[in-house]
């Protein structure tokens, strides 16, 4: 708390200094959820980088997974008179009051990475990925890759009931719908973790005749895929060739596996949500052009052909 306060004061001082130097530069407050995952850390790093690149003064507040901290931070940003506010909301409800305060002060609010249940006029736009589409990209890649061969797929789901698990499952099923030769034979939760991914994969291999019948693994995130790769290796099979691996997120470690030929494809959940957000904000401030209420980030597919080692090196420094 103290640290946040110090940071806020420091940011305020910097802001006044900056505004003295150039009257045009923007000041944007960013209320981040916390740093619970590597992806979140990368999002923070990229937001700071994007702000620096555009000459925007960024005021950063880490909410440590608490909504009340986020609301406090937003009120702080409003009091300081920032030009815009970015929020990565920790939950989907309870934002109406504080967003109305921002609206009264005519400060545009942009949501990053998650959406909320508030009237659409309370925020400028939301920048998120389409989780169903991510699954679909993975499914379509597999359908194209196996061609007309029969293919038994095992699925490592995310935490049961979480929205990425539900949506990425749905999307993948859509992606392989046209290919009747591809069947999901087993599907279990690996809780988005390496340990569980490995344990579940070990059981799948045993349940499916030593793994020789399994043609591909679809994991809802890269960490579970990394665990599955180890389980496949320990069962004496070759991940990437005997059993294909396709997953979602595009964290650095999966590129290392791809470089070794042990993983085949991953769909990126880009941590660069701030780039499109700043684009929309600058366009809005310049000629009052209202952006669409939802900006979908690109869900890019990476395969072994994309020089995985180079991407690994580029992503490594982002704080994943």
């Amino acid at each position, binding site marked *: 708390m103290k640290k946040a306060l110090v940071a806020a004061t420091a940011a305020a001082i910097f802001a006044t200094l900056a505004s003295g130097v150039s009257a045009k530069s923007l000041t944007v407050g960013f209320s981040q959820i916390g*740093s*619970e*995952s*590597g992806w979140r*850390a990368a999002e923070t790093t990229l937001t700071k980088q994007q702000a620096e690149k555009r000459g925007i003064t960024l005021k950063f507040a880490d909410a440590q997974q608490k909504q009340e901290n986020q609301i406090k931070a937003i009120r702080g940003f409003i009091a300081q008179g920032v030009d815009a506010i970015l929020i990565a909301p920790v939950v989907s409800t309870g934002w109406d009051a504080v967003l109305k305060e921002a609206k009264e002060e005519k400060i545009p609010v942009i949501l990053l990475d998650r959406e909320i249940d508030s009237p659409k006029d309370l925020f400028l736009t939301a920048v998120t990925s389409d989780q169903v589409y991510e699954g679909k990209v993975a499914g379509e890649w597999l359908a194209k890759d196996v061609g007309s061969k029969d293919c038994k797929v095992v699925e490592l*789901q995310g935490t*049961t*009931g979480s929205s990425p698990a539900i949506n990425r499952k749905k999307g993948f099923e859509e992606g392989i719908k046209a290919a009747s030769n591809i069947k999901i034979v*087993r*599907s*279990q*939760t690996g*809780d988005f*973790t*390496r*340990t569980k991914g*490995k*344990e*579940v994969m*070990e*059981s*799948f291999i*045993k*349940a499916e005749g*030593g793994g020789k019948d399994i043609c591909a693994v679809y994991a809802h995130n890269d*960490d579970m895929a*990394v*665990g599955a790769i*180890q389980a496949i290796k*320990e*069962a*004496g099979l070759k991940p990437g060739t005997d059993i294909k691996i396709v997953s979602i997120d595009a964290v650095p*470690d999966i590129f290392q596996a791809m470089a070794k030929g042990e993983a085949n494809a991953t769909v990126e959940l880009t941590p660069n949500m701030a780039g499109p957000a700043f684009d929309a904000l600058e366009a809005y401030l310049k000629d009052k052009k209202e952006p669409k209420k939802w900006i979908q980030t690109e869900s890019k597919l990476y395969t072994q052909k994309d020089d995985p080692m180079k991407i690994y090196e580029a992503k490594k420094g982002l*704080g*994943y």
Partner: protein
Amino acid sequence: MNWFTRRLRRLAPQLAALAIILGVISLVAPGFLTVSVQNGRLYGSLIDILVRAAPVALLTVGMTLVIATRGIDLSIGAVIAICGAVAATLISEGYPLPVVIAVSLGVGIACGLWNGVLVAVLDIQPIIATLILMVAGRGIAQLITEGVILTFNDDTFSALGSGALAGIPIPIYLWIGTALAIGLLIRRTALGFLIEATGINRRAASLAGVRARFLLFSAYAISGLCAAIAGMIVTADIRGADANNAGLWLELDAILAVVVGGTSLNGGRFSITASLIGALIIQSINTGILVSGFPPEFNLIIKAGIIIVVLTLQSPAIVTVFGFIKATRRGDKLNHGAKEATR
């Protein structure tokens, strides 16, 4: 009654439960009980159970002792994360294996001693005292790994999690070895007896000359040590320290294993062997669900259902009812016999 039959009678409910669970799973998933040799090591779902049970089994050994002193240790899941993070950091900085193991074990014992200070010296209730490290521990682990999954490539260290010796996976040696060593230490000396005395009535035990404070310290230190070994296995297994998820909620599985093993949370009499069978029961359910092909939405319900049945069969009320039925039957026979005689 000799020693063996007495032991068997104590362990009978747990062994029966384990046998029934394995039997049911093998009906649902054919080939479940097959064990073969592949790549020079034992291979099969039963082996998976023994390997995957290693972290909970290790925690269970320490937890049994702590519960026997009428305490509880909620921090061990977090201690797994801390020790895993320490081990991964040292390995990736190139320290030799013996140093890594020694330091990780030392950190685990230190965590246990911290709990010991809070419980034995400051007299804070164990559930609160260990809750502190449970909450703070994961934060400490995240500080050590700097919030990322710290990966390393070291074949000798990762052998602790996924290697094999003479065809048997190393985690199995580690948990059985640790359990044997601690079991012998406790049961071949008077230590176990003294721990039970402390658990039943600490004041009375102290007045009788038992050094209760020292015993409490030892119990929590052993618990920390076991968690450290488990932490190294978990970390070595995935070749990385995941501060957020390593050992998450495993303390609850360990408590459950102790309870399924029939040791009372009120302290006193305990059986490490029964607790270990409890751990195997829990892992058999987990692995069974995975191989049986149920949709994941059912996992927790199936697990809870089986646990309820096992616990109900062991509950004092049911034991009384069974005793009553037995007694009435015997009584009927006696009455019957008496009538015959009078006729």
